[in-house]
């Protein structure tokens, strides 16, 4: 593998605050409800929060709802006692209608945080009321505290106290993966000789993996700072690696796990190198589309830095600016070391200033949220909307070409469309 840049070679990141154009953590429900179909997500918030979830996931028509909002009314604002009673009544109603729900997440929002409605206490109370039937947990997805994927970090942290303890040696992959990708990675780890591999979150909310001193933690997603720390507190050890995006990142990620389990490098090479060779071959046509193109990433999911690394090193793109909503230097250290020298990072957002920089730079491709994508297209700039990246199977060596395709596609589409 090529050696990376020293982190010192990066200019200091722009730290900005101001107007932000990002999702709140509630949106994590849109994918978490599919990963764990036996869970229900009850947002305690306002009509605004209900609108958000319904607009995001409502294009799918549900026979049985998987999420809902307990909307705080005027009476609730006047007296918190009322709010708690209301919540108990609503939950009882919900559980009567949906007896198959095993885990109920009470999801905090801006309004519930601001009026200091104690959802942790409410969860405890409801747990007592419905013992044996359902586990009630809580986390916050409020816009004040969380940005987009940080909602998953909150949800996973809520699950950690329920994880059984075990000393057994195992590899724990943390972060939502597509089913097929998960199966694939697990089977590759088996081939490397790592027998016990578990995932968090599991496919069923009740089938939580164990954790303890024998657990080696491998983060599949970069936005899990809180979860990682909570698992370390329970005795797990963190495997330091770049994230499994692209051929290079995925190989390094798997190799780091293999090293942690004492797998000899020769065996790693034997298993992974054919995949690497094949992955590069599949990547080649997309590289042709992407090489030399200038890329600007707006902050959204914290996937920006690993993706920028992949797109510059493996697809030949030039990085104009790499924005991230939040930069955890420790968990991002391996990624930062691989970025090309001089890469301009920005943390946080002042959207108007950022748009001014964007317009001045006129990049070939902008990675941004849906609020900006169409307006920027109308200004003649090609965009790749970033939310798709948390809904697509993009992890692992075998998916490197699919990941590149997500960025090449808007460019190919623009070239393909002609109306006269």
């Amino acid at each position, binding site marked *: 593998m090529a050696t990376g840049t020293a982190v010192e070679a990066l200019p200091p990141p722009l730290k900005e605050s101001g107007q932000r154009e990002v999702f709140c953590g509630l949106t994590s429900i*849109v994918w978490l409800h*599919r990963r764990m*179909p036996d869970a229900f997500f009850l947002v305690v918030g306002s009509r605004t929060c209900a609108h958000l979830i319904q607009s995001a996931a409502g*294009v799918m028509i549900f026979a049985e709802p998987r999420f809902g909002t307990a909307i705080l009314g005027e009476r609730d604002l006047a007296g918190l006692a009322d709010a708690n009673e209301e919540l108990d009544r609503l939950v009882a109603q919900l559980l009567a209608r949906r007896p198959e729900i095993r885990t109920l997440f009470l999801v905090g929002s801006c309004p519930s945080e601001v009026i200091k409605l104690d959802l942790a206490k409410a969860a405890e109370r409801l747990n007592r009321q419905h013992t044996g039937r359902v586990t009630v947990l809580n986390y916050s997805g409020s816009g004040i505290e969380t940005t987009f994927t940080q909602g998953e970090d909150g949800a996973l942290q809520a699950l950690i106290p329920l994880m059984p303890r075990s000393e057994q040696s195992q590899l724990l992959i943390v972060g939502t993966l597509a*089913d097929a990708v998960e199966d694939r990675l697990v089977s590759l780890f088996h081939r490397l000789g790592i027998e016990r591999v578990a995932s968090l979150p599991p*496919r069923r909310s009740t089938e939580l993996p164990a954790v303890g001193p024998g657990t080696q933690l491998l983060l599949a997603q970069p936005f899990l700072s809180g979860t990682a720390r909570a698992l370390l507190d329970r005795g797990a050890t963190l495997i330091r690696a770049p994230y499994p995006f692209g051929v290079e990142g995925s190989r390094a990620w798997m190799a780091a796990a293999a090293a942690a389990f004492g797998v000899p490098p020769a065996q790693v090479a034997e298993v992974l190198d054919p995949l690497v060779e094949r992955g590069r*071959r599949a990547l080649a046509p997309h590289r042709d589309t992407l090489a030399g193109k200038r890329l600007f990433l707006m902050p959204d999911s914290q996937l920006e830095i690993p993706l920028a690394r992949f797109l510059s090193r493996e697809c030949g793109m030039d990085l104009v600016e790499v924005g991230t909503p939040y930069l955890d230097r420790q968990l991002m250290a391996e990624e930062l070391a691989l970025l090309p020298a001089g890469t301009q990072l920005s943390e946080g957002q002042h959207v108007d200033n950022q748009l001014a920089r964007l317009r001045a730079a006129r990049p070939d491709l902008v990675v941004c949220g849906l609020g900006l994508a169409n307006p920027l297209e109308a200004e003649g700039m090609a965009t790749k*909307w970033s939310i798709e990246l948390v809904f697509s199977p993009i992890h692992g060596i075998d998916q490197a070409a699919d990941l590149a395709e997500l960025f090449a596609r808007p460019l190919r*589409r623009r070239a393909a469309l*002609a109306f006269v």
Partner: protein
Amino acid sequence: ADAVQRFQPEALLVGESCTAELIQDQPGALAAGMDLGGIPMVSLELPAYSKKENWGAAETFYQLVRGLLKPQLPAPGSPRPDPSRWRAEGRRPRVNLLGPSLLGFRCRDDVREIRQLLDGYGIDVAVVAPLGARPADLLRIPAADANLNLYPELAGTVCSWLERQFGMATVNTVPIGIGATVAFLRELHGVLDLPLPADLEAEGHSRLPWYSRSVDSTYLTGKRVFIFGDASHAIAAARIASRELGFAVVGLGSYSREQARELRAAAKELGLEALITDDYLAVEAAMAEAAPELVLGTQMERHSAKRLGIPCAVISTPLHVQDVPARYAPQMGFEGANVIFDTWVHPLMMGLEEHLIGMFRHDFEFVDGHRSHLGDGPPAAAPEPMAVAPAAAGGGLSWSTDGEAELAKIPFFVRGKVRRNTERYARERGLELIDSEALYEAKAHFSR
């Protein structure tokens, strides 16, 4: 004679059905010998055993127009009328809309759309025929400056006869789709010697271009589509699909033998071999072979697509009652493009659902092949699109259990194609057993 007496028509058509054709009563000759009160009579020669509906309609229309216009035929050698004579005569240019008919695809609204469009450019409509025209109207055809051959299947013969005999100019572009509508307006303005409007290519006329450019449509890029219908609609659809919606056209065909040449040319441009057939089984087999993600066809293709578990939209006759909608639903012109965008995209799984089903396959409600925006339950039978071609893995090829398992993880709408590609790859490499590694190898090999 009864019919003439009771209905007192302006003209009479006399013809035979298939059975009557066998008996050979020569009703046309009989009618010619009867006293019909002096109304024109057209005797139709329609070989029911070798020709079909569209030919019959085209022939009837042609014979009728020819019969009625015979007295007006200009003397041989007289100069062609100048299509820009409207200027000298101090009036707006006027054109005939030829081809729209009952039982045609969306003719009612196409006529209204084209009328409106022309009116916007200061062009009048003289005669619309056959839809809504009386024999007396047909007599006014030569008074127009040009003929618009809107439905070549039906009006092609008449238009070329009018061009030969009366020297009338014809506009042959069928205005279905943005590009075609713009080309149609260009051709028309050229023929009538009108200055080209400055805003002709501005995209503001229709919402399709922006809808198609907007990021919600990115996932449409390269979706594999199979097109079949009458030649005019199939050719128009192929152009819209490939250039205006960003689909990959993987099959193009028509039952219109009369327009086979045009269709072949259109297919060739897309790197395809045109399928000219009226055998629905051949169409279904070609559809299965191409393993598309969307079928644009007639109501027959709806059946095949349903059988194969593929989303489908209707673009051409034959049609059923639901394709004669109460609402305004043209295919032509700029509004037609709006209708087309909605109709073609609707049957596809929506972006978010497509993603989530691709990600998480263990859901109890959102299972493989489910399209919840259509309100359907989970598909009853497994819509394994390749069920019709069980022998596909023949030639000593077989799938291992882990190969099958890996295949099952491919999103269902592309699974058929992946299966085919993998088998092709295995055959080329001389593999006998297809396992998961072979599938990944093939995927990397065919990565587009």
